[in-house]
C-alpha cells in the first residue's frame, strides 16, 4: 500500500479527466478488485485516488441505434436484474448470475471487470462473443475500440493511464441468435472461473452464421477461438462436426497449471463443455 495523498470524487467528467491527465491517479469504481489487490500488496496505489462513482455520464444504459450503451458504472446486479438489459443481452445476465455473491455484485461494475482484465473476468467472455466495443475518454478526446484485441495480457489492456472507460457498446443480437455462457468453478457460487466459455451464432437455414466462440481462464487474456469459429461457420451441427469443434477448441487454447486447475484439466473441460453447448444448440 502507498500513502494516498489526495482523494477526489468529482461530479463532472471534465474534472475527472483533468485529474487523470497527469497519469498519477488510480481509478476507483466498486473497489472489489482494487481494494483486495492493494491490501494484498499486489497493486500500488498512485498518489491520487479518484472515485468515479459520482460521474453521471458513466451510469445507466440506453439503446442507441443498433447497440446497447452500457455505462461503465453499471453494476453486475444491474446486468442481472434490469429487465431491459437482461432481455436485450441475456448472455450478460447469465454471466452476472454466476458472478460472486450479492454483496459483491452490488458494488462490482462492468467497467471495473473490463479494466481489471483478469483472464477469468466473467463479463469478458460474453462481451467478446457479442462483438462489444469499449469507449475511452481522456482530456484529449474519445475513442472506441473493439473489445477483441483490447486485452493485451493479465491485467493489461490498450487503455492508457489517463483514459477513463466510459461505456461499453454492445450490438443488439439479431433475430434467431442463440447464445450460451458456461462458467466452470468447483462450486455453485462465489467461485473464480477455472474455465469459462461463450458461444453465439445465428441459426440460418444454411447453417450457423456469424459464429463466435470465446474462452476465459485458459490463456493470458480472455480469448476468441478463431479456429473453432471458422470450423463451425456456415455449417450445420452434426455429431461429427461437434466432436471436431471440441477437439479444435481444446487445441487452440493456451492454458496453464495453477491452484485452480491444471492445463490438462482445463483443456478437457473446454472440450467437454463446448461439446455440451453445441449438443444443446443442435437440439434447439
Amino acid at each position: 500500500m502507498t500513502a494516498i495523498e489526495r482523494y477526489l470524487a468529482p461530479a463532472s467528467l471534465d474534472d475527472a479527466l483533468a485529474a487523470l491527465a497527469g497519469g498519477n491517479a488510480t481509478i476507483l469504481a466498486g473497489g472489489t478488485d482494487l481494494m483486495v489487490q492493494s491490501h494484498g500488496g499486489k497493486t500500488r496505489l498512485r498518489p491520487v485516488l479518484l472515485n468515479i462513482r459520482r460521474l453521471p455520464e458513466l451510469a445507466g444504459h440506453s439503446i442507441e441505434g443498433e447497440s446497447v450503451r452500457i455505462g461503465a458504472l453499471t453494476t453486475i446486479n444491474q446486468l442481472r436484474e434490469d429487465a431491459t438489459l437482461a432481455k436485450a443481452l441475456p448472455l450478460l445476465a447469465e454471466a452476472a448470475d454466476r458472478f460472486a455473491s450479492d454483496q459483491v455484485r452490488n458494488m462490482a461494475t462492468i467497467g471495473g471487470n473490463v479494466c481489471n482484465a483478469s483472464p477469468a473476468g466473467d463479463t469478458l467472455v460474453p462481451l467478446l462473443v457479442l462483438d462489444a466495443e469499449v469507449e475511452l475518454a481522456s482530456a484529449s478526446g474519445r475513442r472506441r475500440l473493439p473489445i477483441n484485441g483490447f486485452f493485451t495480457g493479465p491485467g493489461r489492456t490498450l487503455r492508457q493511464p489517463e483514459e477513463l472507460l466510459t461505456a461499453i457498446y454492445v450490438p443488439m443480437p439479431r433475430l434467431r441468435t442463440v447464445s450460451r455462457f458456461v462458467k466452470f468453478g468447483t462450486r455453485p457460487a462465489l467461485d473464480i472461473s477455472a474455465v469459462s466459455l461463450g458461444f453465439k451464432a445465428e441459426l440460418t437455414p444454411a447453417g450457423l452464421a456469424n459464429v463466435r466462440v470465446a474462452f476465459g481462464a485458459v490463456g493470458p487474456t480472455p480469448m476468441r477461438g478463431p479456429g473453432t469459429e471458422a470450423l463451425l461457420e456456415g455449417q450445420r451441427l452434426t455429431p461429427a462436426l461437434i466432436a471436431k469443434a471440441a477437439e479444435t477448441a481444446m487445441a487452440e487454447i493456451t492454458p496453464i497449471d495453477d491452484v485452480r486447475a491444471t492445463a490438462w484439466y482445463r483443456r478437457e473441460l473446454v472440450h467437454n463443455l463446448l461439446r455440451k453447448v453445441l449438443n444443446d444448440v443442435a437440439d434447439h
Partner: protein
Amino acid sequence: MTVIEKDSLIGKRLTKMDAPEKTAGKTRYIHDINLPGQLVGMILRTDRVHAIIKSIDTSAARALPGVHAVLTAKDLPQKGLGVNKDNPPLKGERVRCERDEIAAVAAESEEIAAQALRLIKVEYEDLAPLFDPEAALRPGAPVIHESKPDNVAMAFDYSHGDVVAGEAESDVVVEDTFTLHRVTHCCMGVSGIIADFEATSGNLTLYSNTQVPFLHKREFAEVLGMDPGRIRIIQPPIGGGFGSKLDIYPFEPICVYLAQATRRPVKLVFTRAEEFLASPTRQPAIVRLRSGAKKDGTLTFRTVDILLDNGGYTSWGATIPFVMMQTFSSLYRVPHCLYHTKAVYTNNPYAGSFRGYGNLQATFAIEAHMDKMADAIGMDALDFRMKNAQVAGEVTPQGMDFKTCGLQDCLTLAARDSDFAAKRSAYAARKGAVGGVKRGIGMASMLHVGGGAKIYPSDGCGTNIKLDDFGHVTIMTGASEIGQGSETVLAQLVCEELGVPMSAVTVVNNDTDITPWDVGVHASRTTFIAGNSAVGAARKAKAKILAAAAGLSNLPAEQLDLRGGHVIRAEDGESVMPLAKLLRSLHFSDKAELVTTSHYYEPPSVHQDKGFKGNVSAAYAWATQVVEIEVDTDTGIVTLLKVWAAHDVGRVLNRLGIEGQIEGGIVMGQGYALTEDMIMVEGHLKNAGFTDYKLITAPEIPEMSIEFIETMDGEGPQGAKGVGEAPAICMAAAIGNAIENATGVRLTSLPFTPERVYRGLKQGAAS
C-alpha cells in the same frame, strides 16, 4: 395454593444461551478487547522452508519511532514447545518450515509494527529440503532435527491376535494405499492472545482463545519459568476451536515475552492469512491397509501401516495413531490386528489436533475396505457390516468395554431411511454406462470415545454452584465454551435438577481464577464429563435446599422436590414456598451455605497399558451416515444430494444443540471430502485465503435427515454420551463409497475435487 406441573427440559429444543448476542453482532471477542496502554504484537515469519539463520539485523526496526521491543531468539530462553518440546518460540539457528517465527515486535500501532517487521533483515543459508514423508525414511535423507537422526518424531505399534493365522483362513484379501491430505480448521475466530503483567506483583493475566486453559497454565509456567499459581487465564468468547487451540503455539509465549520486555499489555491476534500459515493442520497420512474376510462374511484380519507427515515440529498431530488404532481394532469385530505407525519430520507445516483426531483418516480406509470385501464375497454391504458390528456388552481385544452400543441400530436405521440396499444395487447396475450424470449411494460407520478419554493424569472436571437471595443460580464450571453449546447444556442439566428456568442461570466458564479445574475441550468429553460434574453439584445443592425446606415446612425432605422455582410437595406438585424466599431466609440465618461444590473425579475409565490396551473411555459413541451423490462425468463435479445420519448419542439433551452439532460436523466432513485442501508447493502454502481454500458454502449443503438412537448410557449425565467429533468422521468414507457405487472407480486419495474425480474416471475408463 398453586400446583406446579412437572416439565422436563431434557430433549427440548433450547436456543444456545450465547446465540442472541452472537446473532446481533454484539459478542465481544478478543478483537474487541483493548487494555489501557496496550501495544500491538506482530511476528516476523521466515520465507524459507529449511535453512540456517546466518544473521538477523533488527537495528533499523528498533530505531523506528513507536517500536517498544524487538525480540529474537537470543533474547529468550531456548525452551521447546509442543509434544516433543522441539519447537522454540523464536528460531535462532535454523528454520524448518514456512511458518517459523524469527523475530517479534511490540509497537504502538499495527502500521508501525508491520513496518518494523519489514525493516528486519535476515540472512539464510538454505539447506536441502524434505517434503515427501516417504523420502524422510530413506538413507541419506536430510535430517530435520539432530536429536532424531532417523526423522521419526513418534511411533505407535499395536497388535492383537495373529495376522498370519488370520490371513491363512481368509477367502478374500484386499489391500490399498490411502492418501489423506492436509486441511485446516478455519475457525471464524482466529488465534489470539493478550498478555498483561501486574506491575508490582508480577502476576500474569492472559486473555486467550485457548480451549485448554488449565493445562496452558502449567505449560506457560514451564516455558516462562514462572509459578503457575501466578498465571490467570481469561477466555473471551471463542469463535471456534475444533482442536486448533489445544496445544501451546509459539505466538503465545512470544506475546508474553513482548509484554515482559515492554512492561505493557501486548495483544497479538492473527490475520486470516496468518491463521492459514501458522495455525495447525489436520494430520496428512498415508495408510496402507490389508484386510481379509471369509466367504460367510466374517472379518479375519487387518494389517495397518501408517506414515504421518509430521511437518517441521511435533504438535498433537503426531499422536493421532492413538485414536486411529481404536477404529482399526474395534469399530468392527476383527480377531487379528497388527498396526504400525510412524510420524516423520519434513519441511511441511505441522499438524495439531482436529475434530475427529485421526478418525476421519482411519474410517476412510476401513470403510472403503468394508465395501470392497462385501462386493468381493458377493454379500450385501449392509449385511456384511451388520455381521461384524459390535454390540453392547462386548469387550474388544484392545480392552474397550462397550456398555452401550447402538451400532447395529444406527446401521439399520440409516439404511432403512435411505433405501440403501435397493439404491446401491440399482446404481451399481449403471456403473458401466458411458458419460452423463451418475448417481451413487455410500455408507460409513464410526466409533469414537463418548465418555471422555483417559490421556492426561486426570480426566475430571469441577463445578461450583452458587445460589443467591433471589433464586439465581451461578454455575462455575471448568468446561470451556468454544461455540459447541456446552454452557447451554450444563445450565439445562442443572435446571433439571434444581427446578429453575434457564433464565435463572448464569454460567461462568472462562476464568481460571474462578472456575474449578478441567482438562479442556477435547475428545468429545465436555457434555459427558462436565455434565456429570454439573449434575453432581446440582444434586448436592438440591439435597441441602430440601433439608433446609424440611426444617421450615415440617415436611420430611424426601417428600419435597424443586420445580418451577418453588419448593413443592413431591406427591401432588403443590407449592410449599418459592425457592427465592427459602434462600433469603437461609441467607440471614447461621445455616447459610449458598455455595456448594462438587466434581467428577474420575470417570470409570483407565489409562491404557504400554501395549495400548485398556478401557480408555467411560462410554463410546456410534454412528452410521449414508450419502447420496451425483457425479458429472463431463467435469468430475460431485454433488452431495442428501445425508442420512443415525447417531447413538446415549440420550438427546438439547435437541437443537445436538442437531446443530451434527449438521456442522457433516458440513465439515463434506469440506474434508470434497473441497478443502492446503495446496503446498515445496513447503509453501499456495492458497492462504478463502478464495482458493474452499470451505463449503450454503448452496452446497445437502438435505439432511438426522436420527438419534438413545441407548441411555448408565454413566452419562441423564444417559448422554459425547457427540462433538462424531458427525465429521464418516463423510469422506461414505462419499468415497458412493463415488465407487456411481462410477465403478475407487478413489483412494482425498479430497474428491472435480479434477481428481475426473482424472480418476479417465484412468478408470482407460484401465
